[in-house]
């Protein structure tokens, strides 16, 4: 266990270094832009008077050398009036997001619950269906069912999210009117914002349950159905493949013969001996996919008009909002890295070969 611990500590120590490298990479990416291009974020329209752009560049220090800007972002700035240091990543302040109209942390606080809720609800069908069908497919290897599922998953994998999302929206909302886009109906968002409703997590469906409001829960879930289907469909296709190949791998292992030679029924052979082994890589992949959902939500959130992290990042990236991109990417990387770490630890926990090395 001590090697595990040292592994974790090593990863934790490396984490800030990686983050700094990541931010430097983004910063150098963005330093390809001239101050005049960068200032366009502050100028939504043609400047009305002469010198406006130059004034703004000076005001936001965009003409400073890039390392100076980077350092300012890292260490913060000194307020000439109060003498206090404001902002600075090193002081835990990710800066002000022009796109999100709040500090980056505020924006994360505001936007993350929607994405997290989406991810949460996506995980259940994605993992459930994906793994189940993957197992079914592998057990029936090369039989008709396997072929059908395989083709189905390849087809699923070949459909662009935005085409799938558009079709789903067309059918279930525009045509049938079952599931609306957005996060909540107006009446429900009024309730949610009222003082009677305690917002524990800001994830509406969960808060609704915690508050005992089934009607709100129902409304929240109604809004989640379509994006969840869109997100999950693409991922279960992938998970199916991973599970299938992992399961096939396991089924080809020698210890399956041992189990059969012991007189175990085929059912038990698969359940007791094959699944625990086959699921180890699947758990990893599944967890990484969950983390990777942040990636997948960009388009889904755009299509379904969900104010989450994904749509926010797309917005700020397109409008070249340096601080927002930096802050959110940094946060994403943090999640990714911590997530990876957790997956690694998880891997160690579920696989005794690693845990007890």
């Amino acid at each position, binding site marked *: 266990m001590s090697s595990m611990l040292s592994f974790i500590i090593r990863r934790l120590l490396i984490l800030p270094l990686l983050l700094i490298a990541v931010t430097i990479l983004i910063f150098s990416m963005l330093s390809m832009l001239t101050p005049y*291009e*960068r200032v*366009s974020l*502050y*100028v*939504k329209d*043609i*400047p*009305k*008077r*002469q*010198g*406006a*752009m130059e*004034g*703004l560049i000076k*005001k936001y220090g965009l003409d400073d050398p890039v390392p100076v800007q980077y350092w300012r972002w890292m260490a913060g700035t000194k307020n000439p009036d109060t003498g206090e240091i404001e902002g600075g990543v090193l002081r835990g302040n990710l800066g*002000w997001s022009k796109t*999100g*109209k*709040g500090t980056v942390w505020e*924006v994360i606080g*505001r*936007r993350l619950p929607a994405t997290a809720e989406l991810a949460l609800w996506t995980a*259940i*069908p994605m993992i*459930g269906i994906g*793994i*189940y069908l993957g197992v079914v497919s592998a057990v029936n290897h090369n039989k008709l069912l396997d072929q059908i599922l395989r083709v189905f998953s390849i087809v699923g994998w070949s459909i662009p999210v935005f085409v799938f999302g558009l079709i789903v*929206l067309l059918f*279930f*909302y*525009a045509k*049938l*009117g079952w599931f*609306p*886009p957005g996060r909540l*109906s*107006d*009446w429900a968002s009024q*309730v949610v*914002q*009222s*003082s*009677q409703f305690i917002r524990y997590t800001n994830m509406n469906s969960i808060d609704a349950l915690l*508050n005992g*409001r*089934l*009607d*709100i829960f*129902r409304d929240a879930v*109604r809004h*989640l*159905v379509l994006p*969840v289907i869109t997100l999950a469909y693409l991922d279960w296709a992938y998970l199916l493949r991973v599970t299938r190949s992992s399961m096939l791998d396991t089924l080809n292992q020698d210890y399956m013969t041992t189990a059969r030679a012991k007189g175990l029924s085929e059912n038990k052979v698969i*359940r007791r001996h094959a699944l625990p082994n086959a699921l180890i890589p699947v758990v990893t992949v599944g967890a990484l996919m969950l983390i990777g959902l942040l990636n997948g939500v960009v388009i889904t959130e*755009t299509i379904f*008009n969900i*104010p989450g992290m994904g749509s926010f990042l797309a917005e700020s990236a397109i409008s*070249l909002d340096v601080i927002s991109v930096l802050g959110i990417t940094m946060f994403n990387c943090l999640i990714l890295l911590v997530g990876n770490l957790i997956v690694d630890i998880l891997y160690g926990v579920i696989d005794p070969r690693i845990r007890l090395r």
Partner: protein
Amino acid sequence: MRNKLFVLMSLLVMASMLLTACGQQPATQAAPTAAASTAASESAAEPTKAPEAAAPVSAVEFKNPDTITYITGAGEPETLDPAWTYETAGSTTELNIYEGLTFFKREKTDEFIPALATDWKTSDDGLTWTFNIRKGVKFHEGGTLEPHDVAYTAQRAFLQGRIDGWQWIVYEAFYGPDMAMAGIKDFAAAFSAPAGAKEPPKFETLKPEQLVKVCEDVKTKIVADDDAGTVTYHFKQPVPWMLALTSQQFLGGILDKEWMAENGDWDGDCKTWTKYADPSAENTILFKKANGTGPYKLDHWTPGEEIVLTANENYWRTEPMWEGGPSGVASIKRVVIKNVDEWGTRLSMLQAGDADEIYTPPQYRKELEPFAKQTCGTDESSCKDDKADGFLTYFRKLPMPAITPGQFNWQMNVEGGNPYIGSGKLDGNGIPANFFSDIHIRKAFSACFDYDAMVKDALAGEGVQAQGPIPQGMMGYLKDQAPLNKFDTATCEAEFKKADLDGDGKAAGEDDDDIWSKGFYMQIAYNTGNDTRRMAAEILKAGIESVNPKFTVAVLAMPWPVLLESRRQGKLPIYVGGWVEDYHDPHNWVNPFLYSQGAYGRIVNMTADYKKKYDDIIISGAKANGVEARTPIYESIQKMAQEDAVDIWMYQQMEGFPFQSWIKGFYFNPAYGNPEYGWIYSLSKVAPK
């Protein structure tokens, strides 16, 4: 059993999703104020009716009787501070929260009714305006309106003067056109410049006493007399559009001085004003807070999601604003303004009854025709019945004072290379830098633009060809005259042949070395996503390429920063850019387009003789007092601008607002910014029978 568990869980989720799909939310869900108890929710959540598959269009459900939901698509406010706001999303929202001294009389943009002022008078020279301030008006947060609040508001806005804000309008009014700077720091520097100095000092070098002096001087321009109950403004030049300024945030949007100071904003002290000068949007206390006197209070603004306003239960107005106009507390209690960028989503929400009005760019307006129960003009009196099974009251062809020209760059910048003009020479692979200095080229371009196609296809018929810089209905517009430049390829060809770009005195038609035989190549750029700009460029390209196969125009999508920067550097040969008025006066049209320091005029960069000609006449128009004196000046500007083909005067846009037919009381006033929600006070929501 692990796999079964997964399946069970996922089935459960699926089942719950399907179940919820069938449960329509109750039509009359308790408002938050109605102390919704958890026990009541069970029954409330019962489905009221099963959903109809593919519901007919007429069966749009009536939802939320007290709430009006707007789905905009043009972005959300940058701030809710009236002194900072210089874009329509913010100013329109503020119009419902804050009030000025006057207000537009219903649909009129040049007639005003008293608001926070009871009456006013102006001196004969038009330089001094005095307003009597209404008594007994309470701010949302409880303060009482006094004259010093009005003066404070204007002084604060003046001194806040953020870069690229609207303050140049008041700088010009109080200190003359030369002082119409981009921001307060530039203003202060110019103000403190010793007489005769060529370069103003840097703001950073100004001494504290100089800074105090700026503030004190401003205070002499805007003077409140609490005892007399008046506020007086002293201008440098006549400001015929004064009442338009006091009706909007520019000199309106009255704040409570005491409340502002309590909340940490400027307290009116001339020693500290620089602390509050040129702030970032988020650094003023009014960024996400509001305390006005208007019919609506700001409930909350969650950036990226929604702005919610609630009715001001203590609204001061007891008399109808005009005959049949609204009075008392607002009829609609709650306003939700959401920004949705996707047109498709917006339309879906309208069809589902989740939206009461959606932002509809011109190219999509035809889409809504099948749903129009009534089609109307500028107000309900003009409504005509349309589709019987429709559900919209569809206000269309509303003339916005918004003109979009294709602006030539008469003298292009070629320093450091200019990718837009190819070789930069008259060799068929580019155009020379002074291409558009030749009036025949400008005229040829103006004749090669298919105005009708633009209006018909790009604007879906929602517009008219522009006559010149001054829009329809405005002083200076040449009534009963068709625009001078028409789409006519023959004229276009003839003008091209008349040009003489190599300056050898021979017209291009007879010159082997000139434009007609050499041909040219140029690029017209638009910022990605801007559909009208793109369409205009494409139509121009089609027209020009049709007269001579040697002419090539490439239409390019550019990221906004590139476009902005190229424009600043004066590299773009043609820039398609529209203007929406700040205040309703022809000066606000000729200034930006034609004045050599105007927002667009700077880039048009006319040759010196033209610059002088236009600058002189524009200043004379602004200085003249009275409609009679001014009208002929503007009419001649309008005529000159066409004759000189300064720009391609492309089109004047029209608006279209699809309201659910249960929304009543809408009229069109273009001065509201986004007129569909500029004055929600006048609207009501009436359940369909």
